[in-house]
C-alpha cells in the first residue's frame, strides 16, 4: 500500500513512517507500506490522499479542516504531531532586535498570508499581549525568500523552520523559539475517507498501530531513529541527528491519541489568522474508533 505524508523528506513530520518502514513496525502491525507519496503540503496533500488507492495520509490540521469545510469526504482518525517547536524567528546577528517587543513598528517576513508561519507568529504576539497590527507582516513566498529579504534589509526579522534553521544557524540570531513560548497543539493529523474507513477498518488500525510502535521507538532511541530517518529522507546523518534530537524534548510526535485542549488550541490559532471563524465540530470530524485501546481513553 502507498500512503501520503505531507512534506515527506523535507521536514520531520513523517519521521515515524521512516522509522516504521525501516524497522518493520508496520509489517508487525499487519500492513505492508511499500511507498510514501510526498507532497508540498496543504491542500495538495489532501487531494493526493483522496486520489490514491489507499486513501490514508498525514496532513496539516488546517488543511484537514479546510477540506472538511468544503465538503470533502474525510475523517480524522489519529493525531500525528502536536508542536510548533521547529518554528523560530531569526534576525541578523548584528541587529538591534532582541525580543519580540523590539519588532513593534518594524516589518517581518512570513511565508504567505494565513500560513502556519503567520499563525505561530500571531500566537506568540498574543501570548505577550503585543498588538499585532503594529508589526507589518510581509509575505515572502517561502522561508528562503524570507531570509533573502532579511539579508537585504527589507525586513527586520524572518520566520524560519527546521531543518533549514539548523543548516543556516551560523548566519542568523534567533529571536524567539516557538517551543519556548507556545504550548502543545495538534498541528497534523491522520485522515482517510469515510468510505475507505468503512470498507477497510483493519488497514487503518494497522497503520495507526504500526506508527505508534515507531513513535515509541523514536523516543526510546533518538540516535538510532535519526539514522533511519536520514536513510529514508536522503538527508545527511549529522543533520538528521540534530533535527531529531531537537524534537525529542517537545515530544513532536504523538502516539495517535486525541487531546481536546490541544485540538482547541490549534483552532484558536487558525481563528487568529482568519482561517476559521468558529471552533469546529470535532465530534463530527473525528473518528477515534481505529485507535489502539490504550489511546482511546485519552480523549
Amino acid at each position, binding site marked *: 500500500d502507498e500512503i501520503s505524508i505531507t512534506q515527506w523528506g523535507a521536514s520531520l513530520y513523517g519521521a515515524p513512517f521512516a522509522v516504521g518502514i525501516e524497522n518493520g513496525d508496520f509489517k508487525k502491525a499487519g500492513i505492508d507500506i511499500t511507498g510514501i507519496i510526498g507532497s508540498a503540503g496543504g*491542500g495538495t496533500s*489532501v487531494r493526493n490522499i483522496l486520489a490514491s488507492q489507499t486513501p490514508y495520509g498525514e496532513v496539516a490540521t488546517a488543511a484537514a479542516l479546510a477540506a472538511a469545510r*468544503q465538503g*470533502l469526504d474525510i475523517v480524522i482518525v489519529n493525531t500525528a504531531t502536536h508542536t510548533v517547536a521547529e518554528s523560530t524567528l531569526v534576525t541578523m546577528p548584528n541587529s538591534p532586535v532582541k525580543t519580540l517587543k523590539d519588532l513593534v513598528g518594524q516589518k517581518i517576513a512570513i511565508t504567505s*498570508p494565513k500560513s502556519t508561519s503567520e499563525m505561530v507568529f500571531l500566537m506568540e504576539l498574543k501570548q505577550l499581549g503585543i498588538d499585532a497590527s503594529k508589526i507589518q507582516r510581509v*509575505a515572502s*513566498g517561502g522561508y528562503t*525568500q*524570507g531570509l533573502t529579504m532579511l539579508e*537585504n534589509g527589507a525586513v527586520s526579522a524572518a520566520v524560519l523552520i527546521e531543518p533549514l534553521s539548523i543548516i543556516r544557524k551560523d548566519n542568523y540570531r534567533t529571536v524567539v523559539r516557538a517551543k519556548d513560548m507556545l504550548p502543545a497543539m495538534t498541528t497534523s493529523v491522520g485522515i482517510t475517507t469515510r468510505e475507505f474507513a468503512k470498507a477497510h477498518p483493519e488497514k487503518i488500525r494497522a497503520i495507526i498501530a504500526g506508527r505508534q510502535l515507531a513513535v515509541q521507538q523514536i523516543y526510546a532511541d533518538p540516535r538510532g531513529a535519526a539514522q533511519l530517518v536520514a536513510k529514508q529522507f536522503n538527508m545527511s546523518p549529522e543533520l538528521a541527528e540534530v533535527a531529531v534530537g531537537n524534537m525529542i524534548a517537545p515530544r513532536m510526535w504523538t502516539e495517535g491519541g486525541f487531546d481536546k485542549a490541544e485540538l482547541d488550541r490549534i483552532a484558536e490559532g487558525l481563528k487568529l489568522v482568519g482561517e476559521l471563524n468558529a471552533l469546529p465540530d470535532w465530534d463530527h470530524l473525528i473518528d477515534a474508533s481505529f485507535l489502539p485501546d490504550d489511546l482511546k481513553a485519552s480523549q
Partner: protein
Amino acid sequence: MKHRSLVTAGVVLALALALEVGCRAGLVARTVILPPSEVAASLYDLLRSGEYTSAILATLGNIAISAAISIVGGFISGLIIHASRFLRAGLEPFLASYYAVPTFIFYPVFIVLFGVGSAAIIAIAVLMGVVAMITATLHGLDHLPRVLTRTAHVLRLSPLKTALLVQLPATAPYLFTGMRLAIAYAFIGVIASEFILAGDGLGYAIAYAYNNFENRTMYALMLLIVLAVTAVNAVLDHFDRRLQSRLRR
C-alpha cells in the same frame, strides 16, 4: 471571416454548455469542476467584492512592466546584435537553443540576485520574453528587402531617417510577432512565478484557493486569466491582421 468567427464562438459556447450539463447532471464531481455558469457568477461576486483587486492590479502591473522591458530591450538588443557580425555569429547557436532550456529552474537564483517580490518575478518574465523579441527583430532585419534600403539611398535619406522612416515600418510585421510572443511570455512568466513561489498576485491567489479547496474562487480566478488572455489576444490579433494584410506581400 465574420462567419467563421461566429462558428468559432459557437464551438466554444457548445463546449461550455456541455460542461454545464455534465456538471449539473452529476457526471463530473463538484469537487473537480464547477459548472461554467457558477464560475462566472463567482467571478462577478469576486470582482464586485474588491477582495482581489490589489492582487489583480499587482499581477497586471508586473505583466505590463515585463512585456515593456522585453519589447524595448529585445528590440534594441536585436539592432545591436544585427549590426555586429561577431555578436551575431556568437549568439546565434545560443538563441536557437534558448527556449529548449527550462528557464524556470533558475528562479531561486533570481531571488538571490533581485531580492524577493516583483523584481525577481519581472526578471524571470523578461528572461523568458526578451529572446523572442530579439529573434523577431533579427528575423525582421534579415527579411528587410534590400530594395527598400536602396530606395532610401536613391531618395538621399540620412542613415537615421532611413532607420526611422524605412527600416522600422518595413520590419513592423516581424516586430509585432515578437511583441505578441513577448506579451505571452510575460503572462506565463509572471503568473507561473507567482503560482510557485510568491506571496502575492493572481497566481498566488489561485494556488491559495486550490490549497484551501475554495473551488469557486479558484475557478473564478482561472476564468479571469483566461478572459484576460483572450481579450489581449483578440486585440493583438486585430492589429496583427491589419498589419500583415497591409505590409506582408
